[in-house]
């Protein structure tokens, strides 16, 4: 985008109506009306989810639109924790998410740093390969991944859930872009002081990459917490189910008989809460990522 290199105006300078005057008022009114309408469209389903998971089954069936449970009924949550393997799924999801996130942040920054700063034979080709890998559609890889896991004897194990997700091309790309924005002089100073390559990376450059590391951590957390298709082809033992897998099983599998909507909505709600908290706390990092995507176009 050539526009990016031009002089940047201050943000929010779009004008869609003159201040004051009847036209401005109408525009403002229409603007708020649209915002509120779409705000409801985008948030009300979550409100319904929250309200209905505290309802009794007949109440949820009779008043699905109402956000207020009458009476408040906690049996669905009791049954989530006592009647399903929810705690197990939660534990598995936590384990997988923590290990995958740690692995991605470490491995992706190592590779990103090497691709940004170290001169080694095959670097250009490797970077092209990373870009190409980013373009491979994930769903096409379901059967292939199963084949490899099976062939390596990893199928149906924690390793199958974790190892294939330990690195991702998009993360390498984000880290490489960030490392390139750090001035070389910093590293040169460290080198002159006698630091080796790894030491320079670990104690000088990496601490400067905090914003990128936070972004990558959040994206990896969100991605692996929500990951569904991979767990579908990596394991089949119910003891290894992660939350999305367990939830899908709850809806379409053995427990799917009958409606049991408060139970299902409650389980889905509990699965959403960690990501929702991360989102609310770190909103600006989510937004930054999407902006970076637009700049590539």
């Amino acid at each position, binding site marked *: 985008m050539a526009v990016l290199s031009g002089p940047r105006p201050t943000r929010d300078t779009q004008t869609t109506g003159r201040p004051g005057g009847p036209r401005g008022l109408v525009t403002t009114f229409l603007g708020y009306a649209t915002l509120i309408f779409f705000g409801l469209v985008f948030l009300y389903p979550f409100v*319904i989810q929250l309200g209905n998971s505290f309802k009794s089954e007949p109440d949820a069936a009779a008043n699905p639109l109402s956000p207020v449970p009458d009476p408040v009924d906690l049996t669905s949550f009791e049954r989530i924790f006592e009647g399903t393997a929810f705690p197990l799924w939660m534990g598995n999801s936590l384990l997988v998410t923590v290990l995958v996130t740690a692995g991605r942040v470490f491995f992706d920054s190592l590779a990103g740093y090497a691709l940004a700063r*170290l001169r080694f034979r095959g670097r250009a080709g490797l970077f092209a390969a990373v870009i190409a890998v980013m373009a491979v559609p994930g769903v096409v890889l379901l*059967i292939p991944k199963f084949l490899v896991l099976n062939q390596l004897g990893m199928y149906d194990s924690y390793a199958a859930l974790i190892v294939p997700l330990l690195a991702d091309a998009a993360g390498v790309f984000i880290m490489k872009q960030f490392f390139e924005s750090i001035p070389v002089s910093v590293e040169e100073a460290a080198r002159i002081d006698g630091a080796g390559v790894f030491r320079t990376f670990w104690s000088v450059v990496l601490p400067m990459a905090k914003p990128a590391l936070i972004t990558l951590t959040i994206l990896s957390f969100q991605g692996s917490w929500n990951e569904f298709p991979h767990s579908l082809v990596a394991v089949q033992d119910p003891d290894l189910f992660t939350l999305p897998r367990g*939830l899908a099983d709850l809806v379409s599998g053995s427990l799917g008989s009958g409606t049991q909507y408060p139970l299902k909505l409650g389980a889905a*709600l509990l699965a959403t809460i960690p990501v929702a908290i991360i989102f609310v706390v770190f909103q600006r990092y989510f937004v930054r990522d999407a902006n970076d995507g637009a700049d590539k176009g």
Partner: protein
Amino acid sequence: MAIDALAAPATPAVPPARRRRGGVRGNENLAGWLFVAPVVLILGLFLLLPILMAFWVSLTGWNGQGSPFTGDVPVVGADNYTRLFTEEGLARRDFMTSVRNNLYYVAIVVPAQTALALGLALVVNNRMLKGKAFFRSAFYFPSVTSSVAISVVFLFLFANSGAVNGLLALVGIDGPQWFADARGVLHILLGTVGVDQPPAALTGGGPFGLTWWDWLSGPSVAMVSIITLVVWTTSGTFMLMYLAALQNVPAALDEASTLDGASRWQRFRYVTLPLLKPTTFLVVTLGLIGTWQVFDQVYVMSQGDPAKTTLTPAYLSYRTAFRDFDYGSGAAISFVLFLIIIAMTLLQRWVMRDRDAGRRPWWRRRVPGRS
């Protein structure tokens, strides 16, 4: 190097210097590869190698027993592929049904999510309004949540006596049984004008084993609810992309066109929209790639039912391999899907470029994005 040699012509000094330099470079070479080794290993092992293995499996009739790489597995050559396209049978019928479903899905989701994303971005970018940060987050929030969890919520919303039908009842419409109704919306629309039976011309035959009447069904009612869900979850992401682009539109440009007497619509149509073209290109391309991969929602909400009207190639490939244990066919479907996605991306690229070049003669063409 040369300066070193000049400065210290004495022979003993040169070799250590050279060795040391080579050492640093060699050190960096080694370090570079050590740094990228884990990523190369993981991506190679779980991305590149699988593709090669799956291609081999797509040429076999492997049923999941033992290893597909021994001599015991029947090699069937291109059979798995021809069964999808040329041979009469269930395999082709299911595959073509899934392609039809996905075509309607793409044709509605991509324009809808692009338009909605642009619309939301324009509203959120409005200087006059307060509280935009909140709404921006509200619109984006569904994009970061789990697709499985969201699907559960939408199953409830679209239940027979659910919230959507409750809303429809408020305006006097008797809502359908969303996940049991296999009728295509085009067929339903034709039904309201009295065309209940397909004309003979459309049932006689059609491409790839489906009748023209089947091809022209429109998305089924069940598919419409999945479409609603996906547009709802994805437009927030694309809104952010549009928003980033809008905030880089120079204000002076807008003011100049206002002074020239352009109306709001003209400013949008002839100033803003052309400047957003790179973003639109990105959004549509990502949309095309994403919509051909719809899987999670189908798995959770409908499993391809009712009457296979929510079957998509991605889900069909999974089902063929892991439920029917026909890994060869499943892998073949994956590869065809892979080609479809690549073809869509290239087509979209070509359409955008062609229109750009065709609109004005070459001598008046400007550098895109700069005016």
